[in-house]
Every structure is written in structure tokens, then in C-alpha cells.
């Protein structure tokens, strides 16, 4: 089988348009992020649906966003808003009864959606890597840390001496602030923060262009959370990978990200730079979300929550998904679905208030 691959590899690559793969550690190190003019990831009209007895659940509905090379985007929203589903779909790890119903995921110009299982397998880790929500259990309990990192490298065609492989793993561990001897340890010998660092080291072991970090700090205490976020930040700068950070802690993600995308009921309703989102939130939902974050400098009597609950995703209201809870709701909101409006400065809002073609009395309030 080994012989087969070597003979067929170049032609196969040319034919199927697979991603170029390094075959040694040395090649891998030099492979880094080139200066591609294309966006690191360009998601267009992505739909992830689930079949259920009650009907089709539109967990991610027509989401589009673009992430430049080395950019850091945070996706925030309430539980069940579809942010994790979106993250999994970007890795094409959507499990039945879920499926990608349509759309494009252009990774450095190449669409991941039509890739077959084997092509996608090779793209994972090498091109787009996942740092999971619960890194506490993300490690195989019966394997040494270094072996678990080797596995990913070897299955992506890296053939090199044990020494080179090991040195690479040591570099990865040092980069996330761990000692080399962690490589020889088993997962149960590590603390939660250490495991999360190992997850980051594993995720970056092949210099991917995009890292999807799904709530990488949710199981950790606040002090360790901050350390892990700083580690992720440093690794991101070192590798130049674009990061999609999925989280619900506005304060934590705001420190890390360049841009914030706000999701509500499977839709990306607002996206802009951290400053834009926090200082001048546009979408009524974003405003309410920002108001629900405690502010240390400003004295506020009470924190404002958002009344109501998100709508069931099976049976979405005909107009705007946020209309039932929206303070600026008008008649048109219950009838017409809002479009994705580009309001300049690469800022997008999905709300009639910003749509020139829709007549809204409340315009000017926002």
C-alpha cells in the first residue's frame, strides 16, 4: 500500500485538486501560511439542517462571512443559536440527522462542501483544525500525549524519523507553554488547563490556515481561562492562522478577537469589529446582548436581560427571527425576512432598520 501511494500521489493530487501536503517535518515547518491574497475562509450562504420528527430544524440558516488570513473572529450567541453547529459544519463534522443543505465553505479559495470523505479527512488538521469545547475528555486516556500528536501527523502523510517527529512535538508543547516531558505523559496526569494547551498544540501541529476553537475555555476557572486565551492568542500570532472563536462570554472574546459575529436562531444577525459591536451595536439583539454584560466603570442599578426565549428552530416565525423579542419591532418585521445589509466598513446587519428598501418608522433610533 505504501508503494501505491508514492506512485499515485502526484497524479492523484493533480487530478482531484487535493491540498498540497508536506511529507516531512522540515517541509511542514516551511509550509506555514503563505501570503495568499484570498480570504482564509469565505463562507457563503451556508445551511445546516437537522431532520426531526417535528420537521426540519434550521440550525444554521444562510450564514455568510469572510475571514482574512490571520484574522480572529468570535462567534457569540445564546445556547442553541447554532454557533457550535456552524463550527462543526466548517470542519464538515456534522453528524446525522444533521446535514449541510447548501452553501460554500471556501478555504483559501477551495470549496470544502463538495470534497469527499478522504479529501476532507486530509484537509482536517492540515488546513482547518478544531480545538474542542471540552478538551478535558478530548484526549485518548490510554495514549501518551506525543503519540496522540504523532497520529495526526502520520495520517497526513508525514514520514520522518522518530527524533524529528518528537522534536516537532516538543516545539509545539513549548509554544503553548508546556514542558517537553508532557509529551511522555498520559492525559490523566495533566490538569484541565494543561489539557486545553495540549489541544491547542495538537490543533496547530500542521500549521492549519484556520483554527476553529469551540469554547476552548468553558470548563476552566477564570484565571486559567485567561491564560489559555493568551496562549491561543500567542500561537495564533506565531502561526498566522485565522481563528474562529466560538463562545458566549462577551468579555472574554472581546479581548481576543478582531471581529465579532452575533448569532441568533441559526442566523448571523450582526458582524463587525469588536469596537463597532461593543461601542455602537446596530442590531437590536446585539444592543441587548451588550447591555447584559456588566461594566466595571459604569455604575448600573441592574443588569438588563433579554426578555423571552429564542424561537424553536423547527417552526421559525415568517419574518425576522428576533421579532417576537425585539424592542424595535414593527409590523413589517413579522412579515418580511430581513436581508443581510452591508452598512460599510465590512459591517453587516440583518435588520430592516438598516434596509433602505424597507419602510421602518423606527429608523434613526439605531
Amino acid at each position: 500500500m505504501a508503494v501505491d501511494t508514492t506512485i499515485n500521489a502526484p497524479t492523484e493530487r493533480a487530478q482531484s485538486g487535493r491540498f498540497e501536503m508536506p511529507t516531512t517535518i522540515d517541509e511542514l515547518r516551511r509550509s506555514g501560511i503563505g501570503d495568499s491574497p484570498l480570504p482564509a475562509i469565505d463562507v457563503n450562504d451556508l445551511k445546516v439542517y437537522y431532520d426531526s420528527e417535528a420537521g426540519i430544524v434550521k440550525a444554521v440558516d444562510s450564514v455568510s462571512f469572510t475571514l482574512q488570513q490571520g484574522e480572529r473572529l468570535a462567534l457569540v450567541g445564546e445556547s442553541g443559536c447554532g454557533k457550535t453547529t456552524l463550527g462543526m459544519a466548517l470542519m464538515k463534522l456534522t453528524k446525522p440527522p444533521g446535514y449541510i443543505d447548501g452553501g460554500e465553505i471556501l478555504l483559501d479559495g477551495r470549496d470544502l462542501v463538495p470534497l469527499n470523505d478522504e479529501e476532507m479527512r486530509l484537509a482536517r488538521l492540515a488546513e482547518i483544525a478544531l480545538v474542542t469545547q471540552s478538551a478535558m475528555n478530548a484526549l485518548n486516556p490510554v495514549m501518551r500525549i506525543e503519540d496522540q500528536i504523532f497520529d495526526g501527523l502520520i495520517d497526513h502523510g508525514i514520514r520522518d524519523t522518530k527524533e524529528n517527529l518528537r522534536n516537532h512535538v516538543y516545539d509545539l508543547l513549548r509554544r503553548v507553554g508546556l514542558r517537553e516531558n508532557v509529551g511522555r505523559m498520559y492525559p490523566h496526569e495533566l490538569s484541565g488547563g494543561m489539557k486545553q494547551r495540549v489541544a491547542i498544540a495538537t490543533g496547530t501541529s500542521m500549521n492549519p490556515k484556520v483554527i476553529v476553537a469551540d469554547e476552548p475555555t468553558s470548563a476552566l476557572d477564570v484565571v486559567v481561562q485567561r491564560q489559555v486565551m493568551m496562549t491561543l492568542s500567542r500561537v495564533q500570532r506565531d502561526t498566522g492562522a485565522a481563528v474562529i472563536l466560538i463562545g458566549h462570554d462577551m468579555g472574554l472574546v472581546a479581548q481576543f478577537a478582531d471581529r465579532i459575529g452575533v448569532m441568533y436562531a441559526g442566523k448571523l444577525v450582526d458582524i463587525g469589529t469588536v469596537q463597532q459591536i461593543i461601542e455602537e451595536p446596530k442590531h437590536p439583539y446585539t444592543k441587548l446582548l451588550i447591555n447584559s454584560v456588566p461594566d466595571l466603570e459604569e455604575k448600573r442599578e441592574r443588569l438588563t436581560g433579554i426578555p423571552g426565549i429564542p424561537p424553536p428552530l423547527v417552526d421559525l416565525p415568517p419574518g425576522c427571527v428576533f421579532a417576537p423579542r425585539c424592542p424595535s419591532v414593527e409590523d413589517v418585521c413579522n412579515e418580511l425576512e430581513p436581508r443581510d445589509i452591508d452598512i460599510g466598513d465590512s459591517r453587516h446587519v440583518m435588520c430592516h432598520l438598516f434596509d433602505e428598501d424597507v419602510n421602518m418608522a423606527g429608523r434613526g433610533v439605531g
Partner: protein
Amino acid sequence: MFVAVVFVATSFNFFLPRFTGQDPIATRLELLAAEGVTTRAEDYKALIETYNAKFGLDRPLVFQYLTYLSSAVRFDFGASITKYPTRVGELINQAMPWSIGLLVTSTLLAFVVGTLGGAVLAWQHGPKAAFELILPPFFLLAAVPYYLLGLILIWLLAFQAKLLPLGGGYAPTTLPDWSDFGFLFEVFKHSLLPALSIVLASIGFWALGMRSMMITMQGEDYMLQAEAKGLTKTRSFFRYAVRNAVLPQTTALALTLPHVVSGAILVERIFGYPGVGRVLYEAITGFDYFVIQGVVYIIVLAIAFAMLVIDVIYPLLDPRISYSSA
């Protein structure tokens, strides 16, 4: 620990047969009488006394117990009552290779086939369809006692189809000669049916256990992570899913194997197989204290030893278990 387990179990082994209130010598003489050996009444009494003295059964129970303990340590259980003057050790030694050969092979075979089959059945990406057809009948067979299965097999393959011998370890007309290839083939032929009944009946047991473990394992985060790492299916199957799911299976295997020593009593009985199970069966029906003690003692030792082995090798299988830091 090891010594304590062996001591307690060995003591039970001494007292239990004696609580039945049966007199082994009387039973023996009744058997002889049934065979037509008649004795006069006064001779009968003298005979029992002589025999009891001969086997030490007339002495106080405590004394017998101490003798028994010392004999256990020396692995010498004296002579068999029913098969006098054959020594107990000799009986066991003759039967042991038959039992171990038959049962170790069939148990390991069933374990390997069942465990792998169960693993594939639970694996979402595997060649499921084939296994979905093949394995469920084994789940059904797992519910059928193996001795019943043995009877059906004898009827089908030996009695009706006449493909395989009805029973025994080898044909009664041949002389045992372990260097003769023809004899070895005959032994193999005779072991096929009992082995088949054990394998068929236990594959389902291993497969079911493995299948449910695998389903649990596939929900683990490290399986998702293995997929996100872009691992090949073969690697995530063997090194991530099976590697973890097989741990409880190994414990079950280690606890099953020692029973090999006792032989599957019923299987050996049905197939007339000359193993330890048959020796034990005959000893129990004849109230042959010394043979029962000898066989059970060996079983106790084997189980205790197996537990010791699990304790020693388990840290190698599962790094989370270690004695140095615990």
C-alpha cells in the same frame, strides 16, 4: 490477599462436601453391590471401618482438616476413593491437557471473533451491512445454553450427517500416541463439536459486551477529536475506539479463563470428553472427597492466580491504573 483468597476458598472446599451428610465409603460399596459384588452384613461393617481408617475418615474432623491443608500445600491429595488406588494428582494430570487444549482454544477464539465482530457492528463507518446479517444469530445463540447447543450439534452433525464423531477424546479403537499425526488429527476431529458448541454459544456474549462498550466510546470527545485530527478510519477504530472499549472485555476474559481448568463440566459430560470437567462430575456423583478437593483446589488456585495476573497487567493496558501513585 492471594493467600487469603486461596485459604478461605480451600476451607469451603473441605467443609462443603462433608455437610452433605453422605458417606463416600457406603456409596462406594453400594455401587459395588449394584455391580453384583455382594458382602455379608458383618463383613460389610468391617469393610466400612477398614476403608474409613484407610482414608483417614474415622479421625476427628479438625484432624482431617489439618491433614487436608497440609496436603493442599504439597499438592498431594492422596488416592481416589472411587478409583482406588489411582492418585488424585494422576487423575487430574491426565485430564488437564484435554480441558486446557479444548477450552483455551475455543474461549480465545470466541473472544477474538466476538469482540472484533461486536466492535465492527457498533462502528458507524465500517462494513456494517455484512455484520448486521452475520452477528444477530449469535446474539440468539448467546441465550441458548451451550450444552443444549451441544446436543443439537451432535444430533445434526454427528448423528444425522455423520460428519463428526459422536463423542470421546479419540476413537476407542486407537491407542493414544501423541507423536502420530493420524492420532492428532483424530483428536482434532473429536474436539471440533465440543469446541464449536462453546464458540457458537459465547461469540454472542463477547460481541454484545463489546458492541455496547463501543457505542459508549463513540460518544466520547476523543473520538470526535480523532476525526477532527483527520485520522484514518482504521487508526481511530483500533487505537482510539477498540483500544478503550476492550478494557472491560479483558477483565471479563481473565475471569472466564480460569474456569477452563474446571472444564465446561456439561460440555465434557455430553461429548464424553476426557477432561477435568468429567473427572469432577464423576467425583461428585461418587462422593469422592479427595478428587473433589483436588479439582476444586486447582480451580481456586487458577482463579486467584488469574486475578493476580489481571492486577499485574492491567496498569500496562490502562495507564490510569497504577500502584505507585495510588
